[in-house]
């Protein structure tokens, strides 16, 4: 359980664009143990998807990794050749991304598309072996066996997304990255998909990296979370402890702005302002302009950002360690 599976240290990455460099990921470090669910939460543009793409080394061509390492079972992924990476992808890490259900090739049957991926990774398997495995996976994610003989347009969004999960599992990965896998779906179907992901994870003992902007989903899905703001992790720790005693103002604000159907109906608090542009280098604390109670050090931006430990496995950015 406590075995380190994925270790990301001091990862920094920027995109080279027409308007200048966009610092999408700044000095991000985290570890994911085997069998653990790790959540990355933040608003759009905070860099969470960039992190996911870098983990698979699938980042766009105009991105530059300036620093850091990504170690999967002790093996460095950054700088690996495309051939070696192909083996790692799906074999060890696979991803279910937002809108993945729309990425099926419309003219090939679902089953054939999954078999294609399996042939790439298990060339020695016979066709029957692959079919048996797909049927097994379909059962796991709550799909009927007959689905593999159907074309994508014959399936509903939820079914397609389940099939994507089956595809992601088809090459026995050790980690699944789920990047907003339910964002385009309805609440009821979201609920079903979340349930399937959790079930499969427990059944196969997988690690899960769950990326979402929805703090309620993260609360249910993960053991450990990292809150991202403007490219940096501002708070990281066990989900329970972060939710019970958030230390960073931004985490606090996220929790306070999420409506719930349970408990007293409370007045929600909003956060003024907008996230900063990542094009210009930010001096000091990136959150201080929106912070409800910035310290004087934050305000004049003399404090450098960096995580400090405040509890068991609970770290917070030192700019905001005493904000809440």
């Amino acid at each position, binding site marked *: 359980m406590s075995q380190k599976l994925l270790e990301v240290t001091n990862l920094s990455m920027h*995109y*080279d*664009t*027409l308007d200048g460099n966009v610092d999408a990921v700044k000095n991000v470090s985290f570890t994911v143990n085997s069998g653990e669910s790790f959540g990355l939460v933040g608003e759009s543009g905070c860099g969470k998807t960039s992190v996911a793409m870098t983990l698979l080394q699938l980042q*766009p061509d*105009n991105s530059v990794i300036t620093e850091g390492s990504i170690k999967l079972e002790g093996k460095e992924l950054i700088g690996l050749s495309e051939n070696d990476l192909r083996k790692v992808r799906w074999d060890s890490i696979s991803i279910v991304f937002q809108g993945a259900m729309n990425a099926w090739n419309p003219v090939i049957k679902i089953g054939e598309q999954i078999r294609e991926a399996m042939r790439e990774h298990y060339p020695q398997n016979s066709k029957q072996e692959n079919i048996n495995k797909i049927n097994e996976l379909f059962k796991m994610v709550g799909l009927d066996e007959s689905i593999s003989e159907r074309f994508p347009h014959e399936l509903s969004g939820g079914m397609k997304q389940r099939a994507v999960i089956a595809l992601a599992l088809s090459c026995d990965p050790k980690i699944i990255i789920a990047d907003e896998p339910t964002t385009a779906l309805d609440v009821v179907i979201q609920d079903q998909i979340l349930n399937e992901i959790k079930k499969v994870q427990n059944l196969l003992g997988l690690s899960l990296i769950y990326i979402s902007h929805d703090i309620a989903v993260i609360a249910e899905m993960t053991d450990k979370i990292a809150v991202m703001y403007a490219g940096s992790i501002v708070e990281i720790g066990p989900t329970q402890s972060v939710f019970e005693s958030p230390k960073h103002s931004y985490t606090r604000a996220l929790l306070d702005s999420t409506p719930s159907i349970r408990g007293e109906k409370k007045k929600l608090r909003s956060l003024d302002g907008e996230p900063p542009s990542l094009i210009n280098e930010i001096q000091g604390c990136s959150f201080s302009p929106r912070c409800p109670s910035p310290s004087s050090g934050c305000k004049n931006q003399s404090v450098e950002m960096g995580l400090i430990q405040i509890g068991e496995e609970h770290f917070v950015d030192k700019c905001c360690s005493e904000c809440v």
Partner: protein
Amino acid sequence: MENQNIERDIKATLKKNWRLFRQSRLGITGLVIVIFFGFLAILQPILFLTNVWDEATYHPVVGYDAEQVTRTVVECPDEYPTREYETKEDCPRVDEVNIRYLKAFNIQVEVGDLYESNVQPAPPSSRHLLGTDSLGRDIFSQIMEGSQVAFLLGLISAIIGVGISTLLGTAAAFYGGKLDTYLMRQSDLVLMLPSLPFLFIISAFAELKVWHLAIVLGTLGGLGGSVITIKSQALQVKVKPFVDSARITGGSKRRIMFSHILPNVAPLALLYMVFSVTGAIASESVLSFLGLLNIDMSWGIMIYLAQTEGFIFTGLKYWWLILPAGLAVTLLAGGFYLVGRGLDDVFNPRLRRR
């Protein structure tokens, strides 16, 4: 204060679009070509007005300038090789003239005389940068005149064409129903119509001047395929929430069409306009080359003259009669096309790499 703000905003938008356009090498190449020919077109009247060129010598249509040379009269033999000439092509040499040729014009000379004559067409010289044509007219001046014609024709026909197709395409998308069906069938018909033979027929019945040709080409282009493209763009705009929003508020159909849909179709229309200039310039050259247009001077006419007077099959001996005009047509038509490609990068964000 406010005005400054708008100015700044417009400047910023233009700057951004220019930056995107600049990224496209094709577009910049095209722009350089178009600006070069634009410069030529403007330069000619300036040269005349400032009396750097006098009209009698340099006018593209009625100017005349002859180069005088003195040649020795010889008689070319019937059989080759002889001591002096190896093959038939060697006689007469550049500084000689065949007595039989002069006799044909009833000019009384003897072999060994010196004969003074005009050189038409004359090769490029410092006086005539691109030489003169068979009537002693300055080719460079003709190229400049042709450039004016090409711009005039290309831009007018493009504006007419795009005006028609934008209006019809938007109307087809907005009103739908029978109007849509009619316009689409009409556009199919125009697309099927072989346009060159059609233009031949028109020119047989009417004397086509530049203006007429611009209108005909513009109308043909405007009724054809671009209506379909503009319509599909307008259909996409029509279902946008901001159009719904205007409808909910009670906006009239005219308001929605002219204030909401048209401005959002305009960039695509501009793109089409630039592309259709290319077609217009090429069509003019073909029609002029076939002698079907009543135009004093154009690049097509220049090649037409070279051809009717038999210079076109002389290889590269009279290159200045054909190459400059041919290159000009190719370059300017291609230049507008390349500018279109560059604009495509600006207006179609999907094609952008980042």
